[in-house]
């Protein structure tokens, strides 16, 4: 008698939880648990080679980190590469999406094409770009040599290495962001443009006054996602160094925080210290994502 009643209640109340359960199980196992465990490890002096030998040291790893010149160096490099790659990348993506939104020949082909860089292997891409930015026989140096500018040792100085690494990041992610912009551009009602045209708005005015404000949620999304990705860059600077030493160049001129973490964890085997770096990086990313969210929301508001 109570049975159908109970099963019906379970069906409506219980089954939604059942549907979302797989995600939370996976997130718990591969997201939450490592996060908390890393936090625990970061309060220990933990040598990876010593078969898990460890000692509780409280906040010692964090205070060492704040006095570590190489950490601040890595933070500066990360921010510089992030700005150099993210800002032009998002602007270019917006422009490419705007172009793709028009009636073009081979439109589907072009739309698929912009995604290609994103699905190629990051290792392969970096190796190719590293060769292009080679000092003696690189294509980039050959090209700028035609204009009479002397060969640049791209790895040697801070600005040139950041520029080269940012180029790799941009090449990989611009198309991806362009597709996201394109998708939400197509959701903008066409009447708006027609009305604007009747009022005599130019193409650029339409883009500025209609497209950009209507894309506001998408712009916020891509900015936050690019911030998270940009602050975690590791494979590009690691492979750019040529000999895959994790110090990011002879003077750590392009060592990012993620690479610094890798160096401490898997060359020095200081598991505790590397975990403290990981948690600090996580907090930095959270702060930047929030600031970016607030900033982009305001800018898009002004546009209206």
């Amino acid at each position, binding site marked *: 008698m109570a049975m159908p009643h109970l099963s019906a209640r379970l069906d409506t109340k219980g089954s939604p939880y059942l549907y979302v359960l797989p995600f939370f199980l996976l997130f718990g196992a591969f997201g939450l648990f490592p996060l908390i465990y890393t936090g625990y490890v970061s309060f220990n002096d933990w040598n990876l080679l010593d078969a898990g030998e460890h000692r509780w040291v409280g906040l010692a790893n964090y205070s060492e980190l704040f006095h570590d010149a190489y950490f601040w160096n890595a933070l500066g490099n990360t921010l510089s590469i992030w700005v150099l790659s993210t800002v032009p990348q998002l602007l270019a993506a917006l422009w490419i999406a705007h172009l793709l939104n028009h009636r073009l020949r081979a439109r589907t082909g072009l739309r698929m094409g912009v995604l290609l860089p994103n699905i190629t292997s990051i290792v392969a891409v970096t190796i190719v770009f590293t060769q292009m930015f080679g*000092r003696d*026989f690189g294509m980039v140096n050959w090209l700028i040599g035609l204009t009479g500018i002397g060969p640049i040792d791209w790895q040697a*100085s801070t600005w040139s290495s950041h520029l080269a690494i940012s180029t790799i990041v941009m090449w990989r992610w611009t198309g991806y962001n362009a597709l996201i912009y394109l998708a939400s551009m197509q959701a903008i009602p066409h009447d708006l443009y027609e009305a604007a045209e009747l009022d005599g708005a130019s193409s650029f005015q339409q883009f500025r006054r209609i497209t950009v404000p209507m894309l506001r949620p998408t712009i916020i999304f891509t900015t936050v996602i690019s911030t998270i990705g940009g602050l975690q860059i590791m494979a590009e600077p690691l492979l750019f160094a040529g000999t895959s030493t994790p110090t990011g160049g002879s003077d750590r001129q392009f060592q990012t925080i993620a690479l610094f973490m890798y160096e401490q964890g898997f060359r020095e085997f200081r598991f505790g210290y590397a975990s403290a770096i990981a948690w600090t990086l996580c907090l930095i990313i959270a702060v930047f994502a929030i600031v970016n969210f607030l900033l982009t929301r305001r800018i898009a508001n002004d546009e209206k």
Partner: protein
Amino acid sequence: MRFSRALATAAAATLLLTACGSGGGESGDGATVTLNVSLFGNFGYQELYKQYESAHPNIKIKEHTAAYNDHHRDLATHLATGSGAGDIEGVDMGFIAQMREVGQQFTDLGTDRQSEYLPWKWQASLTKDGKQIGYGTDVGGLAICYRRDLFQQAGLPADRDAVSAAWAGGWDKYLELGKQYTAKAPKGTAFFDGGGALYNAVIGQAPEGFYSSDNTIVVATNPEVRKAWDLVVQAIQSNLSAKLIESSPEWNNGFAKGQFATIACPAWMMAKIKDQAKSFAGKWDVAAVPGGGGNWGGSYLTVPKQGKHVAEAKELAAWLTAPEQQARNFTSQGLLPSIPALYDKPEIAGYKDPFFNDAPVGKLFTTAAKELKPQYQGPRTGDIQTTIRDGLVRIEQGKQTSDQSWQQTVSDVERLAK
């Protein structure tokens, strides 16, 4: 053998190691056993595997190759996490002491082959409590490989005895010849490849290197370390360096493009040159090294305990490093045996290499190996080498003066010791 074959293999090999490392067939009677051999660079084992497999029909051998630094970092990680290592892992001289410190992770290979080996080669892989973690493969020895044709074009003597004699007085003479070369150098060539590689050769000749025999780092206090630094800095400042970083893709390219006329040449470097500079066969030659015998590199085969087929792996490692196989690897690859009884065999002592203009490499390297004064290596030797190399690269890149770079190098090495 401490060179990378190709960077691309680095990441691929990491994946392969994780995927296949603990794999392999089910052991037991009659079933096929797959042995995973993880190496860096070219050990020259391909033919030997085939030979071994046909003699042992139940064994299959898979080799995984990664770049030098990646390989050793991966191995340390696999040891730390307790899984993923190959059944046989190659370890270079620069990293054997680090592995020796965690010797309990490796199969004890016993003492029955002790009498075969060079004593210092045997000692370097022996743990404190007397367990042997690796069978020696090759030793480096040291010579100088040089391009005859470039020497001729620069108006220098090209005959190997004349070249050896020209710098027999020591590294200062080597630099002097380098300055003469640079004055009339063919366009686009420098005298040697890069500061880091030259440094390894020079410090390899000192009686004491980065470590004293009680296992403490003496980089800041050992005058030999600074002496070698000053010498290399002088070479860089005299514009003799092609400024290529050893093992980088650009360095590999430098062989093919002929960007340098000489290179410090342990025996394994000959295999590297043959691989990378195919079009210059017969134009390379080998001369004696200035400053007396020394060693740079050379490797071991180890058997991590975490492997599934330890007994079979041990047997294969022993076979690959047995005298006959080491002798064969010298004539085919140029890898100098670590078993001194072979040095007097006519097929080795009398071996001449046509790639190097029929240079008597057998005589050159066995003589050098016999004179070699062993140097104590500590756990961070490999990383100290890299740190010093970076210091010299900073000077090559014009970022710092010698003193600035030296101070930073010393403090970086202190960090390593933490």
